[in-house]
C-alpha cells in the first residue's frame, strides 16, 4: 500500500492547499482573504512539479499516462485559477472596503470557491493515476461534486442557481449510470482492478455482462465529457455559470472523463481478439455512434446561437466528438501519427489552452451597470463587434482562440487535429474520419462568425457600456493563453514527443494474461471448465 502513497503526493499537496484556503477565506482580515488565490496557485504549481517528476505509476496498462496528465492539469489549472479571480464576493468586498458593511463569514464564499476549485483538481489528478474502478469512481465524483457548488455560487443571480441544480441532478444521473456499469463490470469479471480485468479479458474474452458494463460505463461517463446522449445540460449550465467557471467546466470534468474512458477502454484493450488489433466490436460501435452524433449535434446546434457561452458550450461538445475518434483509433503502432491515445492527450492540451482563451473573452468583457450591482458579462455575439479596433488586445485574443479552435493550419489547433485524422485513418476508420472532416468544415461557420464580429464588423453603437474587466489577473490569463497558442505551436514537437510517450499502451498477450491470473490466485475460466465426457 505504501507504493500507492508515492504517487499520491501531488494530490496530498493540493488537499493541504485546500485546507489552508478554506480557513483563510473566512479571515476577517482582507489581506488574508486575498491570499487565498496565491495559496491555491502555489499548491497547483507544487502539485504539477511533483506530479510530473514523480516515478511513473498508476495503471499498468497506460504506464506513462500519469505524469503527462498531472503536468497538463497543473498548467491549465493555473491558467483557470487566474481566470477565476474575482468570480465571487466582488460586490461584497467593495461594500466592505467602502465601510458600508462589516465582514460576515456567513455571506463570504471566497474560501469555499477556491477550496472547491482545488478539490476538483485533486479529483482530476486522482483520475490520472486510477488503476481500480472504485478509485476511478471516487476520483470522478471528487472532480464533479465541487463543480456543482461552484456553478451555483459563481454569480449572485438565480440563473446560476438554476444551472447548479440542473447540473447536480443530471450529474447524479450520470454517476448512477456509470456506477451501474462499474457494478456490471465487477459482476462480469470478478475484479475491480483494471489490470486484472485486462488479464481476464485477454485470457477469457468478453462475456455479455462485462460487455454491458463497458457500454453503460462509457455512456455514463459521457456526462462528464458532454457527449451525446448526455449533453443536454451543457449549454444551459455553461450559460448560467460565470464565464470563468464555464471555462473550468469545459476542461476539468472533460479531462477527467477522457482519462476515465481511456482507463476503461484499455481494459478490454485495442489489441482485443484473435487478430489482436481492434477494439471489441460492441465497444467500437458504441464509441463510433457516440463520436459521430456528438460532433454533428454539437456543431449543428452551435450554428444557431447568439450567446458566446452557448456557442462555446456546443463547440466543447463537438470537440468531445473529435477526441473520441482518437479513443476509437487506439495506440496503433505507438508512433505519434498513428497513436490515437497520444492524439487525445495532446488534443486535451491544445483544447485546454484554446478553450480558455475563448472563454476568457467573456470573463474579461463586462457591461458597466454602475457601482451598485455586479457588472453583466458581455455574452452576446454583438458585444464582440469591432473589438479589434476598440479593444485590440481582447479582440486578438478571441480571433486567435477561435481560429485555433477551428484548426487553421499555422495555429496550435491544427497540430492537435492532425493526429486525430492520421490515427483514425491508420486504424481504418475512414467513414468516421470523413464525418470528422465534414464537421470541421461546419465548425468553420460559427468560429468565423466570432472572428468576423471581432475583426471585420463596425463597433456596436449600443456598446458604450462595454469595458474591460478591472481584474488584472483575468486579462493576464487571456493574454497568456493566447500567447501560449503561439508559443506551444513552436514547441509542439517536444509536446508531441511527451504525448506520444504518455500514450504508451502495454497490453498482455493471452499467455501472459493466464500467467498473471494464476499468480493472482485466479486460474482462468477456461481451465476450470470440466472436460467434455
Amino acid at each position: 500500500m505504501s507504493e500507492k502513497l508515492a504517487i499520491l503526493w501531488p494530490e496530498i499537496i493540493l488537499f493541504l492547499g485546500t485546507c489552508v484556503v478554506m480557513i483563510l477565506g473566512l479571515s476577517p482580515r482582507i489581506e488574508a482573504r486575498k491570499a487565498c488565490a496565491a495559496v491555491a496557485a502555489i499548491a497547483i504549481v507544487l502539485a504539477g512539479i511533483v506530479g510530473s517528476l514523480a516515478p511513473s505509476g498508476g495503471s499498468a496498462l497506460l504506464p506513462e499516462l500519469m505524469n503527462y496528465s498531472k503536468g497538463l492539469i497543473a498548467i491549465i489549472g493555473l491558467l483557470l485559477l487566474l481566470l477565476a479571480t474575482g468570480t465571487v464576493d466582488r460586490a461584497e468586498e467593495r461594500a466592505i472596503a467602502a465601510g458600508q458593511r462589516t465582514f460576515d463569514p456567513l455571506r463570504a464564499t471566497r474560501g469555499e470557491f477556491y477550496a472547491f476549485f482545488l478539490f476538483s483538481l485533486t479529483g482530476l489528478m486522482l483520475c490520472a493515476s486510477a488503476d481500480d474502478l472504485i478509485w476511478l469512481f471516487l476520483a470522478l465524483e471528487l472532480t464533479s461534486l465541487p463543480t456543482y457548488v461552484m456553478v451555483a455560487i459563481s454569480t449572485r443571480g438565480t440563473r446560476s442557481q438554476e444551472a447548479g441544480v440542473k447540473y447536480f441532478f443530471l450529474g447524479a444521473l450520470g454517476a448512477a449510470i456509470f456506477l451501474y456499469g462499474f457494478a456490471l463490470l465487477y459482476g462480469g469479471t470478478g475484479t475491480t482492478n483494471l489490470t486484472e480485468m485486462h488479464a481476464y479479458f485477454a485470457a477469457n474474452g468478453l462475456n455479455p455482462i462485462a460487455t454491458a458494463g463497458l457500454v453503460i460505463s462509457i455512456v455514463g461517463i459521457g456526462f462528464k465529457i458532454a457527449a451525446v446522449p448526455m449533453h443536454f445540460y451543457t449549454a444551459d449550465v455553461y450559460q448560467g455559470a460565470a464565464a470563468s467557471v464555464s471555462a473550468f467546466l469545459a476542461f476539468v470534468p472533460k479531462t477527467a472523463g477522457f482519462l476515465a474512458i481511456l482507463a476503461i477502454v484499455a481494459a478490454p484493450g485495442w489489441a482485443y481478439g484473435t487478430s489482436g488489433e481492434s477494439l471489441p466490436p460492441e465497444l467500437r460501435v458504441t464509441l463510433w455512434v457516440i463520436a459521430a452524433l456528438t460532433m454533428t449535434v454539437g456543431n449543428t446546434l452551435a450554428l444557431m446561437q447568439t450567446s458566446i457561452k452557448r456557442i462555446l458550450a456546443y463547440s466543447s461538445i463537438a470537440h468531445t466528438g473529435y477526441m473520441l475518434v482518437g479513443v476509437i483509433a487506439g495506440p496503433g503502432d505507438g508512433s505519434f501519427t498513428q497513436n490515437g491515445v497520444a492524439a487525445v492527450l495532446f488534443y486535451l492540451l491544445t483544447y485546454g489552452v484554446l478553450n480558455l482563451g475563448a472563454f476568457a473573452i467573456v470573463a474579461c468583457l463586462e457591461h458597466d451597470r454602475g457601482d451598485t450591482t455586479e457588472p453583466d458579462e458581455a455574452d452576446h455575439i454583438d458585444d464582440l463587434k469591432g473589438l479589434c479596433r476598440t479593444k485590440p488586445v481582447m479582440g486578438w485574443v478571441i480571433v486567435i482562440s477561435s481560429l485555433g479552435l477551428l484548426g487553421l493550419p499555422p495555429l496550435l489547433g491544427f497540430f492537435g487535429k492532425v493526429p486525430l485524422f492520421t490515427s483514425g485513418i491508420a486504424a481504418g476508420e475512414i467513414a468516421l474520419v470523413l464525418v470528422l472532416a465534414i464537421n470541421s468544415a461546419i465548425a468553420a461557420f460559427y468560429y468565423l462568425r466570432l472572428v468576423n464580429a471581432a475583426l471585420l464588423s463596425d463597433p456596436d453603437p449600443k456598446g458604450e457600456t462595454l469595458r474591460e474587466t478591472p481584474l488584472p489577473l483575468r486579462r493576464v490569463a487571456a493574454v497568456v493563453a493566447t500567447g501560449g497558442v503561439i508559443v506551444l505551436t513552436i514547441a509542439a514537437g517536444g509536446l508531441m514527443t511527451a504525448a506520444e510517450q504518455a500514450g504508451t499502451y502495454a497490453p498482455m498477450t493471452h499467455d501472459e494474461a493466464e500467467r498473471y491470473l494464476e499468480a493472482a490466485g485466479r486460474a482462468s475460466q477456461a481451465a476450470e471448465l470440466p472436460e467434455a465426457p
Partner: protein
Amino acid sequence: MTPTTLANVDLVSYLPLGLIITMAVGFAVANVVLTLIIGPKREGKTKGIAYESGMNPVGTARKRFNVRFYLIAMVFLVFDVEVVFLYPWAATFPNIAPGSPDGLMWLIRILFFLFTTVIAYIYGYRKGVFKFD
C-alpha cells in the same frame, strides 16, 4: 451436538456486561435522586409544557428554523462519520504485527484523517456556526 444447558455456561464471562448495566442503571437512578434532593424547585407554566426540542409544541408545523440548526447538524455529521471510520480502524489496528513499518503508516493515516475533521471543525467555527446572538 449437545444442547447447551445453563450449567455449561461460564457465567463469569458475563461479569463485565453486568457491571456496565449496573453502572448505567445506577448512574440514572443516582442522578434522579440527587436532583430530587439538591435541585432547586421552580414550578411555572413554561416549565410544565411538553418538551419539543425547544420548539413551541402547539402551533403550525410550517415554521422557519434558524439556518444554524442545519449547520450544527452538519458539524455533528462530520464527527459522527469520523467515529464510524474510527471504529473499524481501531478494531483492525491491534492485528498489525508489532514493530512492522505498517503500524506507523496506519497511525499516520488515521491522524491525517483526524486532521481533516479538525479542519472541518475550524471551518465551522470560523464560519460562525457556534455563535448564537
